[in-house]
């Protein structure tokens, strides 16, 4: 006796159930990022939200994008944000007031954004996926990045390099000021 192909009574595929669970985790934790009064918890909920998105990528048959999502968005970006918050925040300071200053502007911006995203979703005609990718998806992604679109890839990497150099220049200790201080 095997599990039925679709869920009883509703007729959904089992993948749909997993998708709903992951989407629920993602959206719920994304909401908590905004609503949470504690900035570190906001950051941790953001990690959870990214994990949900990675799960959706894996469910959609693209494990390499899911792994890149975990590696870059959680392993690097979220950690960096948490790191910066922990270095600058102190528990003695007002942890909750920080969020409320630009409520009106934020409300307008989010309504506009909602309208834009909603319109683009409604106007786009989503074609059904033909088939799940084969196991050699990694190889195809590599060819797409390093062969077909290598020029765009190089331009992006140059931009990132410029950003890194600029970041180091800003972060560099001003040596002349140090000497004056000493």
């Amino acid at each position, binding site marked *: 006796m095997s599990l039925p192909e679709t869920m009883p009574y509703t007729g959904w595929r089992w993948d749909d159930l997993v998708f709903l669970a992951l989407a629920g985790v993602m959206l719920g934790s994304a909401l908590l990022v905004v609503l949470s009064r504690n900035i570190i918890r906001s950051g941790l909920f953001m990690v959870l939200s990214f994990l949900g998105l990675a799960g959706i990528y894996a469910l959609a048959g693209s494990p390499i994008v899911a792994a890149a999502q975990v590696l870059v968005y*959680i392993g690097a970006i*979220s950690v960096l944000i948490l790191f910066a918050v922990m270095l600058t925040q102190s528990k003695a300071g007002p942890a909750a007031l920080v969020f409320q200053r630009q409520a009106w502007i934020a409300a307008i911006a989010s309504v506009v954004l909602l309208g834009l995203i909603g319109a683009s979703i409604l106007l786009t005609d989503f074609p059904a996926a033909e088939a799940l990718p084969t196991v050699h998806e990694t190889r195809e992604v590599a060819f797409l990045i390093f062969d077909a679109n290598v020029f765009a890839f190089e331009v992006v990497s140059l931009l990132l390099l410029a950003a890194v150099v600029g970041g180091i220049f800003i972060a560099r200790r001003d040596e002349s000021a140090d000497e004056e201080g000493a």
Partner: protein
Amino acid sequence: MTSLSNPWNRLTLAGKVIVPLVIALIGVTIALAAVWLSGFGPWLIQWLLDTLGANIGIVRFLIATTVILLITVPIAFLNIFFEMKIIAFVNLRVGPNRTGPWGTLASVVHGLKVLAKEDFTPTGADVPVFTLAPAVIFLAAVMTLLVVPFAPGLFAFDMEIGLIYFFAVGGLSVIGLMMAGWASFNKYSLLGGLRAAAGMISYELPLILSVVGIVLLTGSLNLTTIVEDQSGSFLDWNIFRQPLGAMIFFIAATAEGSRTPFDLTEADSEIVAGFATEYSGMRFGFLFFAEYVNVFILSAMTTVLFLGGWNAPLDIDPLLNFFGIATPVTVVLDPGSLGFGLLGVIAIVPPVITLILAVAIRMLIPTWGFLRSLVVAFVLLNMLVVGLLLGWLAINLDWVLGLLWFLIKAIGLSAFFVLLRATLPRVRVDELMGFAWKWLTPAALINIFVTAAALIVVKSMEGGL
């Protein structure tokens, strides 16, 4: 209710565990007997097997994850034992020698001790984050074990992107470290957590870059393919094709596991025990559990990537052929052919062999009493049987020998990590970051460049250019 709750309250803690277990056992026995007597037995077993067979994917997933979760316990115990015994050996001490033979059970006792200690949450701590942090750290370590290929055909998941998965999930432990450091509400914990996170982020870069050379050579991110690519003699192992990469990977792995000389997350004079300062009881135990599992995982990864994984260092088949033994060796045993005689063999042979061994020992060492020689003979018999069983398994199942080689290499490397800890002094904290960014990362980049250039040269020469 009172008639039931009074005897229940009088039970000791152990009794509260054992009495429900006994009741459950009796219930299960009665249910099984009822099923058997009613004649539904064969039908039930058939139905169970059919159901499991039809959902083989789910069953395999559950078994694989459970086994991976469970094998971390012996791994951690072995590493704790190494930690105590090898460092004692280096220090010219005896080390643990009271619990179990050669003190082997000392780590089990440590585990029980940690379980029995008070689990304390400091005032002002962020309770959910504080509670979850050890679990995040431990899970990040265990989940990386899912893709490690232990032997041919013996793995939890054979992912096409196994290598990226390993780095992605392994990097999640940084989140756990920062959670532990921040939620403890203690400046030493916070500093320790930040220091650990900074160290891990810095050393993740050379760790990932150092294996790009292997990916270039193998042309795959699949760990099984990487191991199969190193088959042959030990000269085919990646450590000889990528010596610089192996060195960088090993150093960065030492730092990733927060092992000496890079274990700056714990510094008694500066930040006490780092992010673990406020932890006690089993949560503290979990932090260290994760560390010891991590040591094994990094050893296993080094083995898979650079030391040929499950491949034997030398192929002994030609040597066996030279002596006239046909390979692969097969031993045909069919115990079922004995029928009911098999039961007799199982019942009679072990006592007879034990008695013969006991008599032999008595004759060889006349000073021993008969009981003593009997006990020794029984232990000898068990060792003999286990040895024969292992030999038979190694000949008949190809993954047993592979697993043996893999474990020898990985556990040897774990012991080497402990030996490093006993030998080397700590790095200074300001030198820690500089070493990663100024030396290891450029060296890893040079390694990638040289490997890619060599590949192009070799390919163009083969192509006849």
